[in-house]
């Protein structure tokens, strides 16, 4: 039996190129993984994690469960293409086995089975397989149809904006769009000439027989298969260089992620898996307030990852991000978008500078002591109401407090980290750590979520418990050390600060505190979906007017709840939202201090 004919060449070449490039890339990335990452892989390989990873591959890479959650139509589109194609391959393989038994058949023999079946005069047809294969083809074609539609009108599929693509993507995309229609045509022509095929291809074959003579069909028979093979070949060649790299890359990524590998403050080899696992689906575009509110269209994570992958990332793109985490939260591939952006910034800007901040050496004139250290944070110094409220709360609870930065302190280092200057940030971290150690505090309370995040993640002060003031206040209330009065007709709405909510996972504590003093009304976007106030220190690109525009929108949504007071738990959010709000904007501590019994 022959399983080769000339039109297979594009397919064979394409497949060879694709698998070679994939192999080179993956081997290189894996080889460059740091030792620590390899140890993690070794540790977790023979564990339940491999099984759960496998399940995630099925549910995400094939079924696209997470996209379904975002939008069922979009989920169906992705699933039809991924899962449909997978099934076509799997069932196609089973089909060859069914026809030919367990024997070795070259790859093209499986792919172009319908052609070779005719060529090798396998005349017995299996209607079940014919039906299933046609059904699957229809399934995939429906996805392709939806993809076409999405290009024209993305809103139909629930997306306000869809991704703008680069050349490789366009080539691969065009080829992909042709693959299945061409397969449909080639198999239909085959069915018309040689019979067989399920309801779809034989149906189409019958139509073809009616409208065209046998002669004509014979003439287009070979070209149709050629085109199908060409489309496949082109797609395969373009694939490792285009967004479709994600099809395969997502699989090792899922495993590595299950083995606890994560991107870090500095770029490393693992990042390649995350960067190239991005399918550029564009789901990250819609939640981005820079897009929805300011109409900035070229900075979103999809473009950031694309630019980074092709080594064309510019600072103005890397810097223009609020790092609110709304996109990371929704990303169907689960890419650590914030961390990747941070380590890109770091690669661009982190200049180790020995002498920098040497002035921190002899400035410590701090005094006082206490079990609890209170670090207001730079921004909190501009919201003195928060500080005096905290003072009252500490007093009411009889807490023994040491004020770390009442007369001005050293920045926590997070803003520098966010701008990518990790080495410099470390100097601040070292200074503050030494300060905390010197005063022998047992726990550290801060009013600033920006500080909180860096204290928790970078400070490594394991013997000091780091608390946000919302957590601390809630604890005081629960322990009965702080008695607050509940006012029924006091209505509050709560704005989740990005660094507190998505950043540190603190959603419930502030709400519990608010409920202890009054009624809480939730805005339309809340919790994990909460908006960013717009003034994020992570963004150094947008203007004041743009910040204000975001703040006005956020404030309007909060005011729509009808609450009398807008509560937040971050000095920066408070400052930002106050600018856009008509109603009173306060820090969580303020409403607590006012309700102390």
């Amino acid at each position: 039996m022959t399983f080769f004919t000339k039109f297979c060449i594009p397919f064979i070449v394409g497949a060879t190129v694709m698998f070679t490039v994939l192999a080179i890339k993956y081997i290189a990335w894996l080889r460059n993984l740091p030792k620590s990452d390899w140890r993690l892989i070794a540790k977790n390989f023979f564990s339940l994690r491999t099984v759960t990873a496998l399940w995630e591959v099925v549910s995400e890479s094939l079924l696209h469960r997470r996209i379904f959650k975002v939008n069922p139509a979009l989920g169906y589109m992705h699933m039809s293409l991924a899962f449909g194609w997978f099934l076509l391959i799997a069932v196609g393989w089973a089909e060859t086995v069914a026809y030919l038994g367990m024997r070795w058949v070259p790859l093209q023999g499986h792919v172009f089975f319908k052609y070779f079946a005719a060529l090798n005069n396998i005349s017995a047809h299996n209607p079940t397989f014919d039906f299933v294969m046609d059904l699957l083809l229809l399934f995939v074609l429906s996805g392709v149809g939806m993809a076409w539609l999405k290009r024209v009108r993305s809103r139909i599929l629930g997306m306000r904006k869809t991704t703008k693509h680069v050349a490789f993507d366009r080539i691969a995309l065009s080829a992909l769009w042709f693959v299945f229609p061409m397969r449909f045509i080639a198999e239909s022509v085959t069915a018309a000439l040689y019979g067989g095929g399920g309801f779809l291809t034989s149906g189409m074959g019958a139509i073809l027989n009616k409208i065209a003579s046998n002669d004509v069909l014979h003439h287009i028979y070979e070209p149709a298969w050629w085109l199908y093979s060409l489309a496949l070949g082109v797609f395969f060649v373009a694939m490792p260089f285009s967004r479709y790299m994600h099809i395969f890359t997502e699989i090792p990524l899922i495993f590595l992620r299950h083995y606890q590998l994560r991107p870090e403050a500095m770029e490393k080899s693992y990042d390649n898996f995350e960067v190239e696992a991005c399918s550029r689906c564009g789901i990250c575009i819609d939640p981005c307030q820079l897009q929805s509110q300011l109409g900035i269209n070229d900075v979103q994570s999809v473009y950031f990852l694309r630019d980074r992958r092709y080594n064309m990332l510019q600072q103005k793109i890397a810097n223009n991000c609020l790092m609110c985490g709304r996109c990371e939260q929704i990303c169907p591939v689960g890419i650590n978008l914030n961390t990747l952006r941070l380590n890109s910034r770091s690669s661009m800007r982190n200049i180790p500078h020995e002498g920098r901040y040497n002035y921190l050496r002899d400035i410590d004139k701090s005094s006082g002591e206490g079990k609890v250290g209170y670090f207001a944070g730079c921004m909190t110094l501009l919201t003195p109401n928060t500080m005096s409220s905290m003072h009252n709360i500490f007093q009411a609870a009889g807490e023994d407090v040491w004020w770390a930065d009442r007369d001005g302190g050293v920045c926590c280092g997070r803003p520098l980290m966010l701008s990518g200057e990790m080495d410099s940030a470390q100097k601040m971290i070292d200074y503050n750590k030494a300060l905390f150690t010197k005063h022998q505090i047992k726990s550290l309370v801060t009013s600033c979520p920006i500080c909180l995040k860096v204290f928790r993640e970078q400070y490594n002060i394991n013997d000091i418990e780091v608390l946000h003031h919302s957590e601390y206040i809630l604890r005081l209330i629960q322990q009965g050390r702080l008695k607050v009065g509940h006012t029924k007709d006091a209505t509050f709405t709560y704005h989740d600060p990005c660094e507190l909510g998505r950043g540190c996972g603190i959603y419930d504590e502030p709400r519990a505190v608010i409920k202890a003093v009054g009624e809480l009304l939730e805005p339309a976007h809340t919790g994990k979906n909460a908006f960013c106030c717009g003034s994020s220190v992570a963004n150094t690109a947008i203007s004041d007017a743009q910040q204000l525009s975001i703040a006005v929108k956020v404030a309007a949504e909060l005011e729509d709840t009808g609450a009398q007071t807008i509560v937040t738990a971050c000095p920066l959010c408070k400052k930002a939202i106050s600018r856009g709000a008509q109603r009173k904007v306060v820090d969580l501590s303020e409403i607590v201090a006012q309700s102390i019994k």
Partner: protein
Amino acid sequence: MINFGFSINRARTIDLDRNNLRKSNEIIGEMPELQACIGCGSCTASCTAGNLTEFNFRKVHTLVRRGEYQGAYEEMNKCMLCGKCRLVCPRGINTRGIVMLIKRKLGDF
């Protein structure tokens, strides 16, 4: 050369004819809002680093605009990027962006 026990001081004058204004123009070109500074000094007054050192953001960026680059990079390096200045600037200048831009133009990244 004879050492007389005193020296000829470098002129403190900002000489706009001698200063090379190319980088200054590039900086203003990228962020024209810097020109909106009215010298109120809020940034320096609230500055976390300025509380600890002689760092004066307003003065340094003004000098940079006049083509006086010497020492500006090192001065800007004192900034902790905490962002208080941006919150208090009455002209809404993106001060943190300015710090980063000046460092980018005068430094090596």
